């Protein structure tokens, strides 16, 4: 709790506010100093904390796996290599089970998503006042360190997946094939084309939405609970904090896994020819 004893509502709002840099109608390009400032910036703003931490986690993933991959022996692996290989084989197996078309990009996509989201989610296990406190000392007002509690981050990835779905649908089936699939499923009759189109386009659009919002919803809800627990007196808060954190070890992994598997399944759907 930084500074002069904020009320509970202020504390919660403070913790849910991203560090925003953007174009303010009055102040020009600047860092938002309040939630209203951030809202007034509109679309042309960027969450420095979300971007920073997500890039950091992604880079950590690339660096770690690259390091292990470069030194990977075909003999007896070390402990780190063993751990990395376990993750690798887990993702590879998942992709093998769910994806049957020929596309060498899907497995790396799945690996990237799984490890990246897992690492970003894991930031949630850092005590919620620790890093914001440190940054407050350094003069940074807001610091929301878990990128996956920011819908921009989850929807960003979900939209990335969405574009991949569109891209591969068109690449595999051709524009005509894709349009035909949208028009003639689920009811294969020309009279029902408009109905089919509406249904299929909705189901297509719901894919990224559900993907992004599921991850965001789970992570955000967990974060809010952590914040609420932190409002309790310090001598009692650990009784709730610790079980919730332990439970979240499961949620973190599970949500990363769900996002990955659904992506793979959607991409398999994009490769399916009806």
């Amino acid at each position, binding site marked *: 709790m930084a500074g002069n004893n904020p009320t509970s509502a202020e504390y919660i709002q403070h913790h849910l506010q991203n560090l925003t840099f953007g174009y303010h109608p009055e102040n020009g390009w600047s860092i938002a100093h309040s939630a209203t400032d951030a809202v007034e910036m509109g679309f042309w703003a960027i969450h420095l904390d979300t971007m920073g931490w997500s890039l950091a986690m992604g880079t950590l993933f690339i660096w770690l796996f690259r390091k292990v*991959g*470069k030194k990977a022996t075909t003999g007896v*692996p070390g402990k780190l290599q063993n751990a990395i290989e376990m993750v690798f084989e887990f993702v590879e197996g998942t992709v093998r089970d769910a994806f049957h078309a020929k596309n060498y990009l899907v497995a790396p996509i799945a690996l990237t998503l799984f490890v990246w989201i897992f690492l970003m989610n894991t930031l949630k296990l850092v005590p919620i006042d620790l890093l914001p406190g440190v940054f407050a000392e350094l003069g940074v007002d807001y610091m929301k360190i878990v990128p996956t509690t*920011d819908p921009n981050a989850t929807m*960003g*990835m979900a939209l990335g997946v969405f574009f991949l779905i569109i891209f591969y649908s068109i690449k595999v089936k051709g524009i005509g094939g894709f349009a035909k699939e949208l028009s003639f499923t689920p009811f294969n009759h020309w009279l029902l084309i408009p109905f089919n189109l509406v249904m299929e386009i909705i189901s297509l659009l719901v894919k990224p939405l559900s993907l992004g919002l599921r991850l965001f919803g789970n992570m955000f809800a967990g974060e809010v609970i952590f914040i609420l627990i932190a409002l309790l007196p310090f001598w009692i808060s650990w009784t709730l904090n610790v079980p919730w954190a332990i439970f979240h070890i499961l949620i973190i992994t599970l949500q990363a896994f769900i996002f990955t598997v659904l992506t793979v399944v959607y991409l398999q759907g994009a490769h399916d020819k009806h």
Partner: protein
Amino acid sequence: MNINLTLIGQMIAFAIFVWFCTKYVWPPISNALHERQKKIADGLDAASRANRDLELAQERADETLRESKGQAAEILEQAHKRSNQMIEEARDTARQEGERMIANAQSEIEQEINRAKEELRAQVARLAIEGAERILESSIDEKKHRELVDKLATEL
């Protein structure tokens, strides 16, 4: 919780990380894993082959052992037989030699006895003649009675 440029930023980050992963992360780990898989499969193959070889070798060794045991027993038996024979032979030879030596000794003794008898006989004859000469004072014709005395000497 405003939707803003972060969305685009995250999409770009996603694309970049996927590209990095595809190009620099996936291939080395994948290669290492598959190579190890192959190595392990080869190793297992080799192990089972070696096991089979070992079994065969064991069998061969057992057989050889059995054979050589039989041979050794045979050789031992032969040696026993041979040694018994040799002892028997040596005993025979020794007995024969002994008998021969005893026979030699006996014949020598007999010869000695005969010679001594001859000598004694000759001396007795001479003594008898001398005695008779003295008694008769050379009245005896040496030539005439020689035959008689010799006859006498052989009868002794």
